[in-house]
């Protein structure tokens, strides 16, 4: 395979210097691991991990009608983030209620910042562009910006150390602007994908390496690749677009009805969600603990020998030492405690439906 078609983030050279193993992911050449997935996972849970997530798409939405535009395009109620600095998790749906993407929208005060999945970058931008009225400005900032996540219990202390005395970290699911190390202007968001406290930092591409290096200069900080990013998020039950949902699934099947509030159903796909809510769904996303094997994407899930679903996300939990999976199952099999089996390469391995986050 040729690497010439793969894009690189502004931190590519930094990853190479750290000896990262690079893999293709969503059109980018990305670090999958540095010291090892389990080390990196545990370092994030115990101290702090730093992640280059600059491959993610970043869009800026501004103009007089930006707010009604996003109210129409996104499932969650934009009124919930009318306060400057507020942020929300939300979905973009098609007219049939199928999930086009899951994303976070931040109200940065004078405009909205959207952070979306790298795999959906072009599709999302084109979809928004096609629906956008003239007095809304939509700008793709992805090339000009870097995104670095700092996650784990020591994260906020490090940001405190690197900012002025009068700077206060944003509350959870909020964003503000900061000056890091007296030189690097950034946006600091108290969001993440690991289940730990932490921040996601938006910086200019040209500042990415300086920011990365100053964060990494703290002995508490370990660089973490996409491998541990996946195990960290799956332990929490956080969905990954593509494996845990796609355009063939509606938010209720994906257990994301909570980001489709009922008081405001005029968004694209809202009527389909309303109907699904009234009619009920036949399948829903469930999480499965597996002891005695590691479930993988595409493997069969069975109940009493009968195939009932297919593994979406599947991996090993470094924290707990068991296998973990997600799968769409008939709703009657999605109650915690339901016994299932996963067919792991010709062998049937026992599993049990659990309510995430995974725990012992």
């Amino acid at each position, binding site marked *: 395979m040729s690497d010439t078609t793969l894009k690189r983030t502004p931190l590519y050279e930094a990853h190479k210097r750290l000896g990262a*193993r690079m893999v293709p992911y969503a059109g980018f050449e990305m670090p*999958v*691991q540095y010291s*090892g*997935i*389990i*080390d990196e996972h545990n370092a994030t849970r115990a101290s702090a991990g730093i992640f280059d997530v600059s491959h993610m798409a970043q869009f800026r939405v501004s103009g007089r009608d930006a707010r009604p535009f996003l109210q129409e395009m996104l499932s969650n109620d934009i009124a919930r983030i009318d306060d400057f600095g507020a942020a929300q998790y939300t979905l973009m749906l098609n007219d049939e209620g199928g999930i086009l993407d899951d994303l976070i929208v931040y109200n940065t005060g004078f405009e909205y910042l959207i952070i979306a999945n790298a795999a959906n970058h072009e599709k999302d931008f084109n979809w928004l562009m096609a629906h956008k009225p003239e007095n809304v400005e939509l700008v793709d900032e992805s090339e000009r910006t870097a995104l670095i996540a700092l996650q784990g219990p020591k994260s906020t202390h490090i940001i405190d150390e690197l900012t002025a005395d009068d700077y206060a970290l944003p509350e959870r699911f909020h964003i503000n602007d900061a000056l890091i190390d007296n030189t690097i202007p950034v946006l600091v968001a108290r969001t993440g994908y690991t289940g730990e406290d932490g921040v996601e930092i938006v910086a200019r591409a040209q500042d990415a390496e300086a920011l990365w290096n100053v964060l990494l200069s703290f002995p508490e900080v370990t660089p973490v690749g996409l*491998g541990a990013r*996946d*195990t960290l998020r799956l332990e929490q039950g956080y969905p990954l677009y593509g494996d845990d949902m796609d355009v063939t699934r509606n938010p209720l099947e994906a257990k994301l009805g909570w980001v489709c509030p009922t008081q405001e159903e005029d968004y694209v796909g809202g009527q389909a969600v309303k109907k699904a809510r009234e009619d009920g769904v036949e399948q829903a996303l469930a999480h499965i603990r597996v002891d005695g*094997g*590691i479930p*993988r994407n595409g493997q069969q899930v069975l109940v009493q020998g009968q195939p009932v679903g297919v593994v979406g996300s599947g*991996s*090993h939990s*470094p924290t707990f030492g068991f296998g973990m999976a997600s799968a769409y199952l008939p709703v009657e099999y999605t109650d915690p405690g339901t016994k299932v089996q996963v067919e792991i*390469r010709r*062998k049937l391995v026992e599993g049990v439906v659990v309510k995430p986050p995974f725990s012992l």
Partner: protein
Amino acid sequence: MPSPKNYLFTNDHEWFNQNDEHGIVGITDFAQDQLGEIVYVDLPEVGDSFEAGESFGEVESVKSVSELFMPIGAKVIEVNEDLADAPDLVNSDCYGDGWLIKVSYGDSDLSSLMDGDSYDTYCSEL
């Protein structure tokens, strides 16, 4: 790290060590390094027989699964039970405590296997 001189190797990165009348099979340092931290090892039953090149099990890291291929035609006489609780032995000591299976191999042909120097040359060209 140079491969042990007294072991034999396959181009699938398994090693075979002749030990009196039986042999021991494991994966090489190159293989364990490529896989990363091994979290699960799936081994055959004692008594199972395999042809040379046949799959006899799998090793899994967090991200990936790799099949294990038999270096020679042989019958399994013992499996490394320690790997059930400590699969990372394959990472920390792949030529020693991280061995996989013990086999009886009769008069199986060993001539297709590489010696340590040839295997190191083979890896350096990958």
